[in-house]
Structures are given as C-alpha cells and as structure tokens.
C-alpha cells in the first residue's frame, strides 16, 4: 500500500500524522489534568484550598481516613449509605414504572395511549425544578418533610419522573416483532405472561441499562435533595455533602477531604457509566430479530 504513494505525499502524510498526534496528546493532557490534579490533592498532607505548587509537597492517606472517622461537620459514611439506600429503592420503582409504561405504549392498544404520550412529552418540556418548590409544598402538606419520612420523600422525587422517561425503552420494545406476542397468545398466554415471559427477557440488556441509569440518578442530582433535605445534615445525600465541603466555613479543613470524597464517588459511578454504555451498545447492536 505505502509503496504506491509517491515520496512527497508520504512526507506530507507523516507530517500530518505527527501534528495530529501532538494535537491529540495536548487535548488529552487538558482533559485529564483536572482529574489527575484532584487525585494528587486527595493525598496531600495539609489544609486549605489554595496552594503554591501544582503537586503536593507531602503525601498522606489521612484525608481518606478522616472521611470515615471525622463526623463533626459532615458525616460522609452516613451520606453514602443514605444515597445508596435511596438509589436502590428509587431504581426498583422507576425501572418498574418505565417497563410498565413502555410495554403499554409499545405493545397494547388502549384509548388513552396517544394522549398519555403527548402529555408525557409536554411535562418533559417544563424545566424540571419549576415544579420542585411545589413538590416540596405538597410533601410538606402531607407531613413528609420531617424526620425519617424525608427518605421516603426523596425516593418519591427520584422515581416520580419515571412515568415520562420511557421513550428509550419504548423505542427498544418497538423493535421486538409483534408476531412473538401473537404466537404466545395463541399458545394461551395471558398478556401478563407475555409481558413477563416474552417481552421482559428479550429486553434484558435494556433493563440493565435502565436499572443502572436510574440507580445513578440520586448520586448525580443535588437540586431535589437540597430543597427537600435542606439544613438537616443527617439526611443529606453525597452530592450535597460534597457541595457543602466547599462552602466558606468548611473549605479550609475539608478541601483535601472533598478531593478524597470526589475520587471515592467518581470511581464506582464511572464504572457504572461505562457499563451502561456497553449495555446500550449491545442492546442497539443486537436488537431482536424476528
């Protein structure tokens, strides 16, 4: 191949390649530098947000230890468990909701189908937290913004929106041939059995995608949690905790611990994210063939 290319072209191509490699390397450095910096900071021995050298002068793992031993201002393990529990519950509820709505809109014919889908689309157009203050008032009127009911409120908030987020799942179910359903019904299956024994198994990669995505929601969000949990630190989720570590009162002691916490949260979330991408591509690539 290379032999056919005249000498001048080859030289030009090599210069092009070198320029491209340099360009890509510079880009990667810019993209990775903040993450590298934060990892190094999380091992820094010392206090304060502002330092005079890029790399720390002394290293320690005390920042990680402090996250799990110093509960004076911010109780990191507690927040981690809060978020984990809320994420598990809301992930189960919202996956169930998404599957139900997707199945009904994709496979069944019913009177309110089209109106429901239009309504879901209209609701999605409102800025999400426009209703947030109102949701808070409603939860307050129901007496759910005090004590342990805050957990329940947060779970509801994170899963309530699932009724409108069914479009991806529906799109996937649309690719499953209807003939499979019909064949199953001929064999005497009820629609419930078709749903659980035919449709759901075929949607497996997409279900995994949905489960992880809704599991990640509470870890990433901090607006809802902030409005509902407010100043009650024992109900904070991880993101509010990290946000508060950078508030003026705490930042001096907590900055390095914030870096440690950020690293600890980012690792599992990044892995989960890569998993969702894999599942999504698998699902889209290997769509069910009739």
């Amino acid at each position, binding site marked *: 191949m290379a032999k056919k290319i005249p000498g001048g072209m080859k030289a030009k191509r090599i210069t092009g390649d070198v320029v491209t490699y340099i360009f890509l390397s510079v880009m990667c450095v810019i993209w990775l530098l903040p993450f590298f910096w934060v990892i190094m900071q999380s091992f820094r021995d010392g206090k304060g947000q502002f330092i005079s050298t890029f790399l720390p002068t002394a290293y320690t793992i005390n920042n990680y230890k402090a996250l799990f031993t110093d509960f004076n201002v911010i109780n990191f393990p507690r927040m981690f468990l809060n978020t984990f529990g809320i994420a598990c519950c809301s992930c189960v509820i919202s996956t169930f909701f998404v599957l*139900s709505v997707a199945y009904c809109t994709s496979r069944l014919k019913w009177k309110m189908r089209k109106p429901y889908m239009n309504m879901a689309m209209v*609701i999605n157009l409102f800025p999400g*937290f426009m209703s947030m203050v109102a949701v808070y008032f409603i939860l307050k009127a129901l007496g759910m913004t005090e004590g342990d009911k805050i957990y329940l409120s947060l779970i509801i908030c994170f899963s309530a929106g699932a009724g409108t987020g069914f479009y991806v799942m529906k799109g996937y179910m649309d690719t499953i041939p209807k003939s499979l359903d019909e064949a199953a019904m001929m064999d005497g299956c009820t629609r419930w059995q078709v749903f659980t024994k035919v449709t759901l198994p075929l949607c497996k990669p997409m279900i995994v995608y949905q489960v992880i995505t809704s599991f990640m929601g509470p870890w990433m969000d901090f607006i809802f949690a902030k409005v509902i949990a407010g100043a009650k630190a024992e109900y904070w989720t991880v993101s509010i905790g990290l946000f508060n570590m950078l508030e003026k009162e705490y930042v001096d002691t907590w900055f390095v611990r914030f870096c440690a916490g950020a690293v600890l949260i980012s690792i599992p979330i990044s892995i989960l994210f890569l998993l969702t991408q894999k599942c999504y591509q698998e699902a889209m690539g290997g769509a069910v063939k009739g």
Partner: protein
Amino acid sequence: MSNTLTKAAAARQQAANPYSLSAALKNGGPMIWISCLIMGLANILNGQIIKGLIFLAIEIGVIAFLAVPNGGFYWISMLPGLGEKEMQEVWNDNEGVYEYIMGDQSQLILLYGIASLCIIALLVLAWQSSVRSGYKAACLKAEGKKVTFLDDLKSLLDENIHKLLMTPPTVFLAVFSILPLLYMMSMAFTNYSKEDSHLVLFDWVGLQNFVSIFDSGSAIGKQFGDVLIWTLIWAFFATFLNFFLGTFVAIIINRKTIKFKGFWRGCLSLTIAVPQFVSLMIIRSMMQQDGIINRMLLDAGLIAEKLPFLTDATWARVAVIIINCWVGIPYTIMQVTGILQNIPAEQYEAATIDGANPVQQFINITLPYMIFVMTPYIITQFTGNINNFNIIYLLTRGEPLQVGNSAGDTDLLVTWLYKLTVDQQKYNLGAVIGIFTFVVLAIVSLVTYRSSGSYKDEEGFK
C-alpha cells in the same frame, strides 16, 4: 387540535364499543339513570355486588371529603379570594395572655383548592366508568352471562393489563408532576412574593407579573431582557462550538493512519463518566482568584496579575462557554464517530480520484451529511443548553452579581428561576419565567419532533 383528534377517536370508539356512555344513557332505562346518582347501583342489582360496592364507596368517600367542614368545597370556595383573614392576637381575659388565632394561608388554600378540583375531575371519570360498567352488567345479565368480580380481577392480567400497569406511574405523575405544575403555574397570576410581604396572604393579580416582566422599562423587565439575551447567546455558542469542535476532533481521530483510536476516545470521554457535579466543582476550585490555574500562569510568567475568571462578567461568560466545551466535546465525539463511519467510503474514493483535497472533501461530503443527520441532535442540544442548570450553578452560581440585581451576569433563565424561588422567595416571578421557558422550549421541540422520523413512524402504529 388534539381535542378534535380525540373526538374523532371517540366517535370511532363508539362504533366499536357498544357500552359507551351515550349508549348507556340512551338505552339503559331507569335503573341506569338512578345509578347515575347512586354510583354502582346497577352493578349491585345485576349481580356484581363487590364492584358496585366499590363504586359506591368511591362516591361516598369523595362526597364526604368535599362536604365536611374544611373539606374540598371549603377550599374551592376560598379559591377566588385566596383568604383574607390575617393572624390575630386576641386578649384572653381569663388566662391573662394574648392568644393567636390562625389566619388564612393563601398558599395552602391554593394547593388544596387545586387538589380538590382535581379530585372532582377524578370523580367525574369514576362516574363515567361506573355508568358504563353498570350498563354493561345489565346487558350481560339480559344475555344470561355472568361476570364475577374474580373475572374482572383476572382481566386485569390480560385484556385490561394496561389499567393495572399504567395506574401506579400515572398516579405518581399526577400527584408529583401535574399537580405541582398546575400549582406553580397558577402562582404566576398572584402576588405570592417576599416583596411587600405577601408570603402568607396573597391575591390574584391577573397578568400583572407578565406585564412587569415583559416591560423593558421596569427594573425586573430590564433584567429579564439581559438574562434572556445571555441565555440565547450561551445556548448558541455552547451548542455550535461543541458541535464543530467535537466534529473536528472526531474526524481527526478517525484519520486512517492514526493508531490507538480507542485510547484517545477513552481519555476524552472521562469527563462524561465522572459525575458532572464533581468535575465542575473541581474546575470551580481551580479557577478561583487564588486557584491553581492562576498560580501556574503566574509562576510560568505568562501573566503579570491574576485573571478574574469568575469575578469579571466577560471573563466568567467566556469561561463557562469554554468549560462547557470541555464537558461537551466528548459527547459530540461519541455521537459523531458512529455517523462518520456510516458515510459511504466510495464517495471519498471518487472524490480523491477527481482530485479533491481533504478540505474540499470535508466541505462537500462530510459536512452536508453530518448536518443532515445531526439537525435533530443539534436542536435537542440547543434546548438542553437553554435548560442547562448544572454547569452554570456549579461553576459560577450565576455570579458575578451586580449590586441591586437579582440575577447574576452568568445566570440563565433556569438558574434565575431557581434563585427567585428557592433563595429570594419571589414565587410569582419564578413561575412567569418557568412558563416563558416552557413556551420557548415547546415551540422549538414541537417543530423538531413533528418533522422527526420517529413521530412519523409512530403514526403508522397498528
């Protein structure tokens, strides 16, 4: 328009469904007419006792809820005035103390009033279905068939499965999305605001809030203009810079002679994988006046004094747009890479034979194809950027803030909405901005959605 559609659909339904409401009222006879008043009576008389009792219980329950003192009717009757009574101090002679008598709370009146109206709407739906169901029971009895309650339950797993599956999501949606939206939207027509201390008692003011926001002479109107213009500038640059730079990088990585394609893409996609609030808070800390970026630039001798990244309006605006590129370019690369690989290779070969150089190939082959395929994506990105709360709030918190303004120089409509409601408690203005944002997004999205393939395919749903 959707109304006429549903009407047409209803007419079609009627032919298919012999147990419709009008058929029931026309052919049902006295028993059905009576059960229009006493829901479920026709079911009970026709042997469907449990079902009938459920309908009856619903009716009694709702009417009891509406009629009791401080029940639904009370709240609805208070809706037009939104409450007048202030909290009062009364001197109690026997005890020798002041006693407080709770006044009206407009906010609760509004919420409960709207909720009661919704419950009445639900009662109407239940009434409809009870009349139909009663008529159906009567017809079946006349034909000598018998449908037991157990059969009805079983049908929930089969032909009526949508009722079973759709109920929980719809209830959640109604209580935690639709009711709050109605509630919030109604606030736009009141003076519910910390201003003039209308936090406990407020009134309907009609379109006054809309007028003051769209009046460029008033202080709030001027700010609205500024924020709106910045929101549009931001959305434009954030969308198109991301798109063009992302496409550029994707094409470079896609060069035939470049090795380790996966490695480059992987490095760049780390900003997608790490939670956004973490990476943005890190960047915020790095860009502070005394942060590491200024420190490094100073040490390297590139600048003489610290750059005001987040404290000067222009610097901050440029900074958020650039940081948004840092966050957004990997997304574009992800989207574009697949599309680039779909462009038929023959087109490029033919172009090479015709002597077209890479730039000409890009302009005449790659770009038209990309724009054709990516238009819906770009428009979604544009609307997403108008609503991009995270990047602004976490990076600059809308600052720098000029004295006397309620919106900072980098505030978008959404972050301003957040500040107006959560921090400043000017709920009425927040609601107006929310409605306005919705209208803008709705227009943009409807136009895109209507012309997109998925909508047209949906029409073909059998």
